[in-house]
């Protein structure tokens, strides 16, 4: 851990200004990922700007009906929030599927979106990694890549994004509100994280000094669920996860939104599957065909090829269960 300065600004504007001033400054919120990186030498900021005390910790319904989640809202609090549980069960389930109780108590909404891959080589500074040191090479492609991406990866990086919350938010068409020196802007969550391409060190579209202030959740998704497959029953990252929103009317898919976790450098919004499904029959064969369509471009490595059939079966099973529930309630 290299020494760093620490500031605790009074408001968002000074926080943004403080990080913007110093190219080696970073925001600190719950610290559940960044503090590990400080110890491991993965991150070496000169300045930490602690935003956990900023007044960004409210969950509030907006006049237009959107639910605004402050960036500093803790994962545990968000999962337990009555409006989240009622309007967005997929999000509550995803949050509770993540990490451990202790970590969820510390982790924040903004920090969760910005957590970095758990690729073992990224976290071990004694091995080359393009994400950590651009141009150094990728150790995962020829090494232990069982947990890595099968969709949208590049020859430079096969890392998978670890968040559960972000996968649900992607399926919910969440909007990330961002404050920079030049003002505020919004980015839809599916566009917030990047694919690695030839710049795997850039996880998101955020510029240096931009601060997430909130995440807006439009509409509602009462018939939605999150299903995570992992190596143990808790405290493990997803091998594959599925966030799904499904509305069925007269046996047909009226509305479907689908996102996958554990399969890509970002929460993977399954737009191709959604297109195949929308308006079609709400049947298992259609769900399977949609899953196959989504996974047609999967390019797994030898050690993670199982993720493709796993994702296919999981998507099919999750949609089937949601459709069955819809049928039972009618």
């Amino acid at each position: 851990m290299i020494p760093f300065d620490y500031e605790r600004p009074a408001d968002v504007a000074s926080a943004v200004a403080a990080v913007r001033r110093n190219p080696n400054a970073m925001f600190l919120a719950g610290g559940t990922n960044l503090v590990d990186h400080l110890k491991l030498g993965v991150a070496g900021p000169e300045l930490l700007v602690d935003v956990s005390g900023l007044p960004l910790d409210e969950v509030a319904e907006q006049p237009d009906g959107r639910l605004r989640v402050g960036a500093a809202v803790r994962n545990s609090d968000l999962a337990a929030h009555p409006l989240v549980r009622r309007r967005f069960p997929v999000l509550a389930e995803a949050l509770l599927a993540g990490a451990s109780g202790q970590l969820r108590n510390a982790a924040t909404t903004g920090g969760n979106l910005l957590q970095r891959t758990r690729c073992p080589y990224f976290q071990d500074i004694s091995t080359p990694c393009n994400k950590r040191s651009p141009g150094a090479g990728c150790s995962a492609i020829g090494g232990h890549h069982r947990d890595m991406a099968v969709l949208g990866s590049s020859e430079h990086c096969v890392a998978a994004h670890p968040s559960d919350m972000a996968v649900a938010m992607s399926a919910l068409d969440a909007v990330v509100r961002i404050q920079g020196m030049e003002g505020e802007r919004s980015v839809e969550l599916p566009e917030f994280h990047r694919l690695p391409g030839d710049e795997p060190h850039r996880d998101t579209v955020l510029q240096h000094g931009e601060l997430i202030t909130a995440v807006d959740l439009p509409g509602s998704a009462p018939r939605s669920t999150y299903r995570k497959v992992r190596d143990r029953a808790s405290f493990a990252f997803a091998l594959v996860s599925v966030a799904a929103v499904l509305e069925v009317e007269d046996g047909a898919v009226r509305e479907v939104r689908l996102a996958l976790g554990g399969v890509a450098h970002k929460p993977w919004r399954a737009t191709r599957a959604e297109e195949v499904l929308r308006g079609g029959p709400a049947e298992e064969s259609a769900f399977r065909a949609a899953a196959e369509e989504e996974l047609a471009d999967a390019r797994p490595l030898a050690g993670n090829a199982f993720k493709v059939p796993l994702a296919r079966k999981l998507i099919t099973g999750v949609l089937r269960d949601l459709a069955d529930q819809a049928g039972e309630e009618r």
Partner: protein
Amino acid sequence: MTELDPRAIGAPLERTDGRAKVTGTAAYAFEQPVADPLYVHPVQSTIARGRIRHVDTDTAADLEGVVAVLTHLNAPGLAEHDPELHVLQSPEIAFRGQPVAAVLAETPEIARHAAGLVRVDYEQEEHDVVLRADHPQLYAPEVVNPSFPTDTAEGDPEASAEVEVDHEYSTPMEHNNPMEPHATVAVWAGGHLTLHDSTQGVHKARSRLAPVLGLPEERIRVVSPHVGGGFGSKGTAHAHNVLAALAARVAGGRAVKLALTRQQMFDLVGHRTPTIQRVRLGADRDGRLSVVVHDVVEHTSKVQEFAEQTAVSTRTVYAAPNRRTSHRLAPLDVPVPFWMRAPGEAPGMFATEVAMDELAEACGLDPIELRLRNEPATDPSSGLPYSARNLAECLRAGAVRFGWEERDPRPASRWDGDWLVGLGVAAATYPRYYSPGSVAVIRFQGGRYLVRIGAADIGTGTRTALAQIAADALGCGFRDVLLELGDTDLPTATVEGGSSGLASWGATVVAAAERFRAEFGDDPADGAETSAETPEDPAGGTVATHSFGAHFAEARVNALTGEVRVPRMLGVFSVGRVVNPRTARSQLIGGMVMGLSAALHEHSVLDPRFGHVVNRDFAQYHVAAHADVADVEAFWLDEHDPHAGPSGGRGIGEIGIVGSPAAIANAVHHATGVRIRDLPITPDVLIR
């Protein structure tokens, strides 16, 4: 042979140190109060084989707060050459992660920062870290741990049989990962070295370190009042103890603290070797075994040999006229493997007991019935009668408790939604080790009996259970006993290992109590004191003393995702008399949970290109989490084994992990019809 009148023995007493532990006031090694300490952080090799060409320590040494940077060029010399402990003595690199330098600084943060600033230039050589069954350097060790013959053979092991199963099984490299990382506080004062250490044996640690440090044993004191688990990895001194002692030598009399990080524990404190095991079983159509072959290939370090006794339990569990066991080691450029809970029995009985399940299927027999038909009258290994061979009773009692008779023997026959449900069984055996060489002192002082012995309580509850034995041996109340352990200033004691501690130390304490009563009667004067050594083994080579057990498991396998959940585990054990049912249950279910963890989770992934374990933290090296552990029950037969010692118990720390992985693998087969012979059983291996 004295029989104790069990009064305190058998009582489910709470740990005497329980309150201190749960309230955080029990001081573990790193928390021992010392004035004005310095901190050490090791620098580890980033190559697996070669030598150091050049070390640049200037930047690190210039950092404010750095007291010293030790390398092989300036570290104090060591005396005896103990390969694993020979740190900072030469430029040679034998495994990735080997300490190549150590920074001594005013704070742990500065030490760690400075460690990252040490630049090491290597001359790298090609390394070899991959275990293969056809490794060209395979060799037969002289003995396997601790002193068993490497190979055995009887009859014609190649003989054919009416029914045969012949398969290869594998278990992965695993790391012990006790909750408390290894830690040492070293203080030099007046030519004496004190180590506050987290160890399973203060005297064993000292006897290994003394010749390395070139000190007579009486000038080293090792203190270890509380230990947060060890699972074998704290059963001897490791390199970090020497690093701390070397650093303390240049610390100008200040105390030096060293706590390994979780990541460093994957290189420096031992591991369980991966195994490749061939098991061939032959039987007649009625399931009577005629051939038992168990051939093992495993690794050791080129630095120092450790030969896991993987096939040894097979020698005693089933008889057959034609048998063979063998062990072959591949010497690799890896850290030194060492004890991990039930070394040998844990991986070995996985293979044997899955093979027995396969044989039962091939014979069309219930797997319990197959085992009952193969109960030997005497120990097939030694030819001696058993003090208690109660495997059959464990199997029968467990079957009743678990509801085995309701099991439909056909695999893949029971569904619950997307989940396939299966039941599995496996046998367990573990030898009773009896360790001579301890001394106990009993002193009557202030109306209480002070019992002093340098034993260890590594979280198992020994401090409490040993006091129970002492109370019954003295014929006094439990509260009249004051037990002291965990310090080389106390009388010498053997290491906590091989589930031998309580029985061996207990026999020593009983001998001292008998002598005390003989010398001082029932009304001793204040200050009356006597001591005794561990008596001779009451089994005395006339009987074979082994514990046994039967494991039952229910597995649920998701047909879509390959997820495996274990809602029920049940074990029935024959372990002799149980001294403290509360702590004993904790040991047994703890072993079973560790078996669950081995079955489904644990796997140290060694990257052959770099030569080190890459999943080196608790987020990546999975051990069973609470949510994985559901209904786990342990029962034991009501027994007293007089051959085991005066307490009548044979040891319980390890048998829980033996066989439980096989019970789960067999349950997965019963659930799915898929036979998994390689651990761990993760979703990817079941996805089709």
